[in-house]
């Protein structure tokens, strides 16, 4: 066991764990977070996704000790009490069925839009390819992402006028 320092959702946390422990278990069991969830433990499904310095990573396979950047989880996406536009779009489009995979869907979408704010349909499909859903909400996930892109464009146009 050794003492790790993690920066998560703007706060600093310490955890006394085996450094090989995948980040997912430290976030869930030591820090009590609930956004990232176990799905496969094999980097194949995306349900455990968190952002590290804005990049989507699979927390089920990355040892906690290897993380030095700022971690953002689903709980940390909202800013100043305002939901992330993706979270809002998820509500507007009534996206989930069971919702278990939607941490992965939303966090992957966040990383995608941060990389590429105006993705084409093909780029959305490609960028989201690793986020699996067994209730098959893909169609609405894509609709919600497109809604966020559309609304951001509309805002940009409005402010340019």
């Amino acid at each position, binding site marked *: *066991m050794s003492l790790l320092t993690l920066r998560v959702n703007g706060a600093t946390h310490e955890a006394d*764990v*085996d450094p*090989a*422990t*995948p980040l997912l*278990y430290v976030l*869930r*069991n030591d820090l*009590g*977070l*609930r*956004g990232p*969830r*176990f*799905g*496969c*433990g*094999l980097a*194949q*499904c995306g*349900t455990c996704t968190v952002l590290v310095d804005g990049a989507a990573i699979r927390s089920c396979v990355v040892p906690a000790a290897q993380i030095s950047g700022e971690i953002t*989880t*689903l*709980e940390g*996406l*909202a800013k100043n009490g305002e*939901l992330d536009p993706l*979270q809002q779009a*998820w*509500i507007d489009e*009534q*996206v*989930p*069925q*069971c*919702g*278990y*995979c*939607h*941490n992965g869907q*939303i966090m992957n979408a966040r990383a995608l839009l941060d990389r590429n704010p105006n993705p084409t*349909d093909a780029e*959305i*499909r*490609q960028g*989201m*390819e690793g*986020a*699996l*859903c*067994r*209730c*098959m*909400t*893909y*169609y*609405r*996930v*894509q609709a919600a992402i497109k809604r966020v892109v559309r609304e951001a464009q509309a805002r940009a146009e409005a402010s340019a006028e």
Partner: protein
Amino acid sequence: MSATFEFPKAVVEAALQTVNPTSRRDFLKSSGALVLSVGVNSFPASKAFAQAGGTGPYPDPDFRQLDTWIVIHPDNTATFFVGKTDGGQGTGTAFRQLMCDELDIAYADTRLVMGHTDITPDQGGSGGSDAIERDGWPMRRVAAEARRVLLELAAERLDAPLAALEVRDATISVGSDSTRSITYAQLIGGQRFDVALTGSDVNATRGLADIKPVDALRVVGQSVQRYDIPPKVDGSLTWAVDMRLPGMVHARNVRPPLAGATLRGIDAASIADIPGLVKVVSRGNYVAVVCEREEHAMRAARQLQVDWAPPPQAPFPASAALFDYMRGATPTSSSEPIRRGNPEAAFETAHRVIEAEYAVPFQGHTAIGPAHALADPSEGQMTIYSNDMKTYGLRNGVAKFLDMPRERVRVVYMDGPQVYGRTAADDVGFEAAFLARELGRPVRVQWMRDEETAWDTKGPAYTFKLRGGLDTEGRVIALDYDARAADYNHLWYNDPDTVLIAQLMGRRSAAPFAGFASAPAVLYAVPHQRMATHVVRLPLIWETPLRTGNLRDPNGPQVTFAFESFIDELAAGAQVDPVQLRLDMLAASPEDDRFLRARSLAAVRAAAAAYGWDPRPSPQLRNTKSRAADPILTGRGIAYTYRIGTVVATIAEVEVDRRTGRVWVKRLVCAHDCGLVVNPEGLRNTVECGMLHALSRALWEEVQFDTEKVTSVDWLTHPSLRHSDTPASIEVVIVNGDPNPGRPDLPPYGAGEASHKPVIAAVANAVYDATGVRLRRPPFRKERVLAALQAAAV
């Protein structure tokens, strides 16, 4: 009379999960404690609450008491208690809508508690898409009864005749005179109704009041947003997978590496180095490791050296040989064939006879989140935190399995991953309870990915033989259907003798369950028919990973694939348009009290109209100039079916890449009629996802195995639909057509499964239309499709 009752914090938090966060906070605050009731001298939220204690006993909430179902709070809001669960289809929201309309209260002023065995009346949990179809009725009637009782109280208090009273948003007034009004809270807030209901069972529960006519419903029919979505997307929901209790330990199972293997010995020293190791538990062939920390439990399960003796004979054929094996097996049971007319004679006189064989492999639930449960054995009781869709069954089953009095066991329902039937959520609940009792500490059990994919229950594999006879006019005069399902020892829900841990411990039910093989739901007017079904078994029936159990519309996708593909083959044989053939056969069928004939015709026509179907026989002409050169072939296919009272017609448009064999379903159109629609948007979402779930089964899903074990163990070896497979367009046409277009006074029928049934057939029919190649065995992965195209020189 009854004092305010305190529940353990974990139970209350679990119960209030789906209440929206703001009102949840107020709720807790206004109660002044973690109490599921409001106010100081208030009563428990229901009779069940009064009796249910932190330490038990936990009796069954009495469904014949109005207080069990509905509580009016002093702030003029209400809480509904129902014995159902919501797997994400929005049934919880729909229940609230139904009850709000009958009670005359605004949707926003209500909350709903579901599926807790000691808090909500036993409606059996979920299953069979009957949430709205069956279980909505008692909810509506008890809400109507509450309104009736409140009106009577108001008549007395306002000194006005009943007929003069009006109700709006939980406030009763004399006519529209706002000076003479009184709220539900003023009448009864914080007090008990103390009204007895009647009914021989929970489904028949009713009071004196009748429910409103459909025309008077206001909240029903609106696309109210699902209340469970915000906490699911902002990360605030505590799921079953998140439950943690003080003193809790983590368990992982160690499964036999070969199906049917016998435990010879465990080398406990092999994991002596693992920190926080609590115990290795073994009983028969059931083995689990328990550690203080989760990552150590995972390591211990991987590292533990276990000596397994292989089984004396191969447990099953390899998946590649499965269908031959099934076709050659002696059935364990065969149904008495369903006959109409004289099929033998009709085939003799037929102008043309068409035959085809189909097959569908085992397909799994394979939830995105592997099965999990937490069990707390404190104070001689057992509390299980679970997402099992049948929490009441889990309670009863665990009590029997552990030989505990039922009133010492309760199940707290919490959200979890998909539950489309008999999933491993059943199995893991028993495992957690067993281990919790062994250890005397709360135990959380989490299945791993390979365990979930390999060992979860499977939908049965099927083989089919179909024959059809056409007359000289191209009419279908005879049909012969013969199906075999590998479904022997089919598992029922939460059965203490057949859950996986029971099997591995050597516990057995008296006799294996005979299993199911289904005939299609046929409305088509075919004068001469014979439908025969058989169940076959694989060599190993106990302790096998190829366990069968209900998977979303348990036999519908398989059977409808074969049957509706064959109807398409008959249409092609007769060189008639496949929509027209179906319409002709439906038009000639008799009507019934659900108006299935008229509604089926309306659905098929609506799907064709929404798609823009141009009538012509399939397949499209090949080798026209443009098509010969085009690497992408496009086609469309239809399939139609019904499930109980729900009618569905689905059209798929596909692009087939003749270079790679990849099939992309570009467009799906579904005309859907489930009678009264409670929440159109919720319905659309469920129908869309039901279709895509079937699309995954059409394109990707197959449980594969060698002669020793299941080899489909993760998302590489068991692929599933992905974002890139998603259709560019999905249209759901809510028909609700004949006999009363727009707003039928039809009862609501189930919507969780019907749209799942016809998709595999629609895709196969579309591929045929595009290529002239008939795919008779899903999944239509590109290698299989390419081989078929090449064999046909497409």
